[in-house]
Structure formats: structure tokens, C-alpha cells
């Protein structure tokens, strides 16, 4: 039973990290790159606007940071909850 509640706590913590990561993921791609582009049109960068940059470059850089941060956080979480391999 104790192991079960430990596992549930681990799973909730994992889901919380995923939730936060996916909010950032969404804002930086679908948000800045597509939906919010008109709002960012005033911020100029290299002959175009910030939305274009996010759509063709910025979003990819953010994705990279997100995955490695997630992997590191989960390694820590695995140890904390004693579920590492």
C-alpha cells in the first residue's frame, strides 16, 4: 500500500511537470508562431517580425530546452521517489 501511494505521488509529480512544459510548448509554437503573431507584429527582427522568428526558429530552440529540462527533472524525481533503475 505504501508503495502504491508513493507511485501515485510520483505519477502526479510527473504529470505536473509535463503540464507546465506543454503550456510553454504551446505558447512558443502555436501561440507566438501562429495565433499571437499579429500582436507581436510591432517587434521587428531582421526584416520581419518576432512571430516569424518564433515560427521558423525560436520554437525549435525552445523545444530543445524543454526536452532536456524535462529529462533532468525526471531523473531527479525518479531518485526522490526511489523508482530509478
Amino acid at each position: 500500500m505504501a508503495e502504491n501511494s508513493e507511485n501515485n505521488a510520483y505519477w502526479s509529480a510527473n504529470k505536473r511537470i509535463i503540464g507546465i512544459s506543454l503550456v510553454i510548448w504551446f505558447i512558443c509554437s502555436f501561440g507566438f508562431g501562429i495565433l499571437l503573431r499579429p500582436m507581436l507584429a510591432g517587434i521587428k527582427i531582421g526584416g520581419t517580425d518576432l512571430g516569424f522568428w518564433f515560427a521558423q526558429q525560436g520554437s525549435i530552440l525552445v523545444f530543445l530546452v524543454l526536452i532536456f529540462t524535462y529529462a533532468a527533472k525526471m531523473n531527479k524525481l525518479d531518485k526522490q521517489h526511489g523508482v530509478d533503475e
Partner: protein
Amino acid sequence: MDQFTLNLIVVGATFALYIGIAIWARAGSTSEFYAAGRGVHPVVNGMATGADWMSAASFISMAGIISFGGYNTSAYLMGWTGGYVLLAMLIAPYLRKFGKFTVPEFIGDRFYSQTARTVAVICLITASLTYVIGQMTGVGVAFSRFLEVDNTTGLLIGAAIVFFYAVIGGMKGITYTQVAQYVVLITAYTIPAIFISLKLTGNPVPPLGLFADAKSTGLPILETLNGMLEDLGFAEYTRQTDTTLNMFLFTVSLMIGTAGLPHVIVRFFTVPTVADARSSAGWALVFIALLYLTAPAVGAMARVNLIDTFYPNGTQSEAVSLDAIENSESLDWVRNWEQTGLLAFDDKNGDGLIEYNGSADNELTVNRDIITLANPEIANLPGWVIALVAAGGLAAALSTAAGLLMAISSAVSHDLIKSQINPSISEKGELMSARVSMAVAIVIATYLGLNPPGFAAQTVALAFGLAASSIFPALLMGIFSKRVNNKGAVAGMIAGLAVTVVYIFLHKGWFFIPGTNSFDDSDPLLLSIKSTSFGSIGALVNFVVAYVVSNASDEPPAEIQELVESVRIPRGAGGAVDH
């Protein structure tokens, strides 16, 4: 030495390398054939995944599509990279923990149903086969140019090589060959990009060059390009002309398709631990991002160079003369590509000039799939760079085609024949059936590749839509919900795949046969949703149907709920090698 000989030497050398590695690592037992004995380091695995992932669509086709579509085609860039975030967080670690060979195996066990497993095999084959058609299109373009033959002959030669290549090696051969292929393809992609970026902007880093000032005008290169396009009556490069709805749904479809494509997912079965599965997704994206950050620069700069070629004195002056195209040495590439049938010019108004513009009087048509391969020629780069790009394009197409054929053949031999039709089949018989199914898949894909439903990347995008609508939702629900049961999953997969297949066939022709379509993507059936974007709607249908059906029927049995609990926890994952 002429270009043709140089191409032959460089392409031949790279092929010898891949085949050498494949023979050296020749697959022995079936378990090695499928998942490389499960002991591949995350960085190596990431690189191999990168090669597997970056196909003819990414290498040969994507920059060309971006070159002509500008901002509107950003979905390819965001979609085909953002999916890795979903893979790393929602799919890969749990499937690695589950620890089986194939994706249908997980679906069959989690939904305690042979029917679910069979439906998953059908979804997998539909998506992968469509994907191979796109690869064949790219292989055809690459071979026709470098062997200087027409497109159909190029495609047939390419298909024969893909067949030979995929059948002699298993996954293990493929893992190490793919590392070699990654190195070839990324070198081939970045070297011309660096040359061109230096030439146009003085900045040697293409992603920075894209936002730098053009040497010719002193204005940012994107502003320069916008100006050129405006002069010629094309839409501005950075302007949105597609609807926000379609762009949004297209990006969703490509992202979740990425996380649902079995040939990518099985890559994560080959790492030693669950933690490695997470970091491996990150490494894969690092290697993929090197190309994806370069591609938008290649696209924009190739368009600038293309326009410069046809308007040597600027877009407000006269176009290039027909005489120059037919005789000038620096325009050799135009004649070479004309030979393949993928580029055509016609002096319609008889003024002796070839005018390239956005009006109905346009006299030049360029197949978008040739842009990456023609790019170094357009920019007059040295011959060895042109040969290297040909080798890179073939590496990209071959590695992905091989990975997809592996996924198809293991689904047929392992999930269909061994588990359901003939469980007592010998290991030899299983390998044999795997190879026969590969051969059948190649024949079908080659036949359909002769009249492809779109440019390579567009056909591949359809495959992502199919994976998005069928496999991704089943995997996600299988891991994150304990309530979704066998009936729900089967009904969801069938509904999601069916609506997507029908929507695609209505727009692209039934079984992709030209002329049998009732709608066209320029005026689609539903709102502004193109067939390439419909996978996201199919996924939504899948989720809703699975949820409703599951809630109307029994909860999954206790042992299945325990199985779900166990895939969520890394501890206890099976060993990598002795599995």
C-alpha cells in the same frame, strides 16, 4: 572531370560505406533484427533516429516547399520538431518500460485484445506505406538528376536500390549505417547553405544569415526577398496567406503524427533504460534541429538565387533570354533539370525572354522538390558540393525508407503472422515473411510513387495525419488513462483512421489515383481545412469515440490497470541486451 562522373564517385563512395557497415553488422537472430539487441547509447541512438527521421521530405523537399510558401509553410518546421517534445514526455519512456518489440504489441496487450492489435497493424501499414510513397517521390527526383535520366526511370532505379538495401540489413545494420548516413546528410545539407549564406549576407551561420542584411541591397535579406517577389507579382515571403485555422490544425497534425509514427517510436525501444529514452528524444532533436534551423535559410536564399538567375539585372529589368538558357554555361543546371521533366520553360509570348512571375503569363515552372538539390548549382558552387548534396539526398531517402520498411515488415511478420496466423512459425520463416512483406510494400509504393499525391513533403504530411488520427491517441490513452478499454480503443482507432482516410481520398483521389477526387485542397470540403491538416480532426474523433464507448462499457480488468501502473514507473524495466 565532368559533374556526372563526380556525382557517381561521391555517391558510389557513400553507398560502399553504408553497405560495408550493413554487411559487417549483418543481423543474426530475429530479436537482433527488430531492435538491435537493445543496447544502443542515447547519443548514438539520437543520431540514428535523426537519420531515420530526416527523410526525402526533410532533406530534398522541405526547403523547396518553404522557398515557395514562405511563412505559410512554418508548420513543417514547428510540427516536425515539436512532436519530439510530445514523444519525450508522453510516449517514449513508458513504451520503453513496457519493453516489447513493436507498437501494435503494446496496443494489443494494453487493450487486451487481438482485434486492437490487428487494427493497430492496419493503421501502421496505412501510415507507413503513404510515407514510403513520399520517399519514393524524393528518390525518383534525386536519381533522375544524378543519373541524368527522366523521373520515372530514376524512380525505378531508386526502388531497386531501396529494396536491396533494406532487405540485406536488419535494424542493427541500420542503426550503425544510419549514424554514417546522418553524418553524410548533415554535411551535405549545411555546406552549401554556409557557402550561400556567406555569399549573400557575409554571415557563415545560415540561421543567422536569414535575419542578416543582404550584401547586394544593404537591407535585411527577407525584406530584399519580399521586394523582389512583390515586383514579380508573387505574395510576400513573410506574409500569411493561408488561414490561421489551417496552419494551426496542420501543425497539430504533424506534431502528434510525429509522436505516433511507429518507425520513430521503435527507436526508443533500443536504448538501455527509461531515463535514456527521455534523453534520447532530446539528442534526436539536437541532430534534427541542425537541419531544421538551416532549412528556412536554404529556402529563402534559394528563392533569392533563383530570381537572380532569371533576372540577372534585377527584378525591375529584363528577364533572362531564351538564348542564354539554351547556351550559357552558367545555366547548365536549367538544361540538366529540364531533362528530368521537373523544370520546364516556354517562351509563350515569343519575345525571346523567359519571364518568371506570379501572373498567368509565367513562363517557368519549377518542381519544388528540386530546390534543395539544384540549390548549389543555382548558386554556382563547386562540383564536389553538388555531388555531396546528391549523396546526402539519397542517404536521407534511403535511411527513412529502410526504417519504414522495417516497421511494416515487423508488423506483418511479428504482429500478424507469428502472433495470430501461424504461432509455430520458425525463426527463419518469420525472417522470410518479413522480407516478403518489405518487397510487397516497395512494389506498391513505387507504383503509387509514379503518380504521387503531392510533392514529397506533402505526401509525407498525409502519412503524419494518418498516424496522428489513429496510433497517437491509442498510445496516449493507453498510458494516461486506466479507464479506456478494449472496445473504446478499437472503435476510436477505426473511427479516427476512417474519417481521415476518407477525407484524404476525397481530396487526393481514391487510393491516390489521379482524377478520382471530388474536392481540391484549394477549396476543401470543410472550412479551410486541407487534407494534409485533417489528421488533427481525425485524432479528435478518435479521442471522443474512445472515451464515449469506454464509458458505456466495462472497466478494464484489474491486471490491465496494474499494467498501466507499471509502465508509468521506470523501475524494473527489462534489460536492454538480454531481453
